[in-house]
């Protein structure tokens, strides 16, 4: 069942298209990756879905209703963003207590266990927190709120690798016990990619990819070998990147029939290698790669 329906969403600021004609839906109980470079429009889209910004045109339904000033929708949504402001005179304790009063599914025991896991000083003023601690507070609110629709927008700025792993582990555990729809917006794709079930890629305000993560994994591959043979094999295919050195060349191909084509390439004696999700995203958002219409 889809719980978010976005139709032809457009957001324009002073003639700049921050979001352009974006349509997609989110299904219940999946973990989504909302990927793209900084400034691609990811945060704007999430702001609009949570009714914190207004679209210029287009329509959207969240849990089947328009979210603006809609208690039935907003009480089920949690949006953790990197730029979240907290009252100056609040301590971590005040922020978490406030959140516990505002999210109907809040689990306070869980929140307190997370505070220990992330080693947060409950009585420290919010304005005295390091970037990493500020991120950890957001992560705790996002997890403990147990909102049926939760957005994390770059939730780990300033967190070290060990703490990020802690976040991924807690997220996965809690999601297993309390399945819900989670959207992870990030540019650290490799770290989160094993957690993602579905990927939405935004570039320049447009949706350029909307695909099952496992399907995507099989779609892109790099063939290398003698330049002539590689050229013959990739003829007519959707090429993302071409590199050559002397008589050898390596070409990255994106194809919905990835699995079959790989076998063909192997039979031709061409060398095959995988393209990690992160690299695939980088290539898809490369301005030189113009042939975006192929994938839908």
């Amino acid at each position, binding site marked *: 069942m889809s719980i978010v329906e976005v139709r032809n969403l457009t957001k324009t600021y002073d003639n700049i298209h921050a979001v352009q004609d974006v349509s997609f839906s989110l299904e219940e109980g999946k973990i989504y990756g909302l990927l793209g470079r900084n400034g691609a429009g990811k945060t704007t889209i999430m702001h609009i879905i949570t009714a914190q910004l207004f679209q210029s045109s287009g329509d959207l339904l969240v849990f089947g209703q328009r979210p603006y000033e809609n208690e039935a929708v*907003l009480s089920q949504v949690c949006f953790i963003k990197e730029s979240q*402001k907290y009252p*100056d*005179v609040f301590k971590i304790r005040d*922020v978490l207590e*406030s959140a516990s009063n505002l999210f109907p599914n809040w689990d306070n025991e869980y929140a307190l266990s997370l505070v220990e896991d992330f080693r947060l000083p409950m009585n420290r003023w919010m304005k005295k927190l390091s970037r990493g601690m500020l991120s950890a507070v957001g992560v705790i609110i996002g997890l403990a709120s147990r909102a049926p629709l939760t957005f994390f927008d770059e939730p780990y700025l300033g967190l070290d690798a060990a703490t990020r792993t802690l976040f991924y582990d807690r997220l996965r555990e809690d999601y297993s016990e309390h399945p819900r729809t989670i959207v992870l917006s990030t540019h650290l794709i490799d770290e989160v990619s094993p957690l993602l079930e579905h990927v939405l890629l935004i570039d320049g305000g447009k949706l350029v990819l909307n695909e099952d993560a496992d399907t995507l994994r099989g779609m892109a591959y790099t063939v290398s070998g003698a330049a002539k043979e590689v050229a013959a094999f990739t003829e007519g295919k959707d090429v993302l990147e071409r590199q050559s050195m002397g008589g050898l060349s390596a070409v990255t191909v994106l194809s919905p029939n990835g699995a079959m084509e790989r076998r063909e390439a192997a039979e031709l004696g061409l060398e095959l290698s995988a393209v990690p999700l992160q690299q695939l995203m980088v290539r898809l958002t490369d301005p030189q790669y113009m042939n975006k219409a192929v994938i839908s």
Partner: protein
Amino acid sequence: MTRVHGVVKIHLKDKWTWIYIPWMILLSSFSINFLIAALAAPEAGVKTGGVLSIFIYMMVTGIITMYNTFPFALGMSVRRTDYFKGTFLAALLINALTTVVLLALFLIEEKVIPEWGVSLQFFSLAFLRSFNLLELFGIFFLLLLNMFYAGFAISCLQRRFGRTGMFVFFGGLLAAGSIASYFLTANNGWMTLFGWLAEHYDLLFWWSLPLTLLYMVLSYLMMRRTTV
């Protein structure tokens, strides 16, 4: 617990903006006047409008509280309407408490320790002594609320329309003031106005109520379209 209640609790946690700072300012004004009255001991005693400082600070509270808590509440998925309602309840509650304390100090100054023993009129100003307790409660309470919502409306204006909005609004206010002042001067209206005010100042307090309601309506309308 409804989320309006949650918003009230956010405000109640923000004790610095709502309680500590206003009272610190009021009490420092009182201390200075008390010292002057006690040490310099002027013959006519000290009559001061220092109590006004807490009313003026309530306007600052109106400005700061929006800045401090609105982006937080919106970020916690609170409806703008619920933020508005919660803020209203918090303003009623805290201003009622402030009023009660002001009245207590008024009575102490008037009856228990007359003029604090040093001929200081700080809380029980002469022109207020003709009112009964209920009327005094109404006057203090409505004025505090009025000041709070004046600040709150300014803050909403700033959030909704940005610097341009502030510029246009205050520019317009200044222009309107200048024109009114021109006509009053031209028609010798100043004297009439002041004469009328001196006689009917008690009405003025009650007239703050419709003004407060106007600020509230405007704040609400602006807030409905405010974004992060």
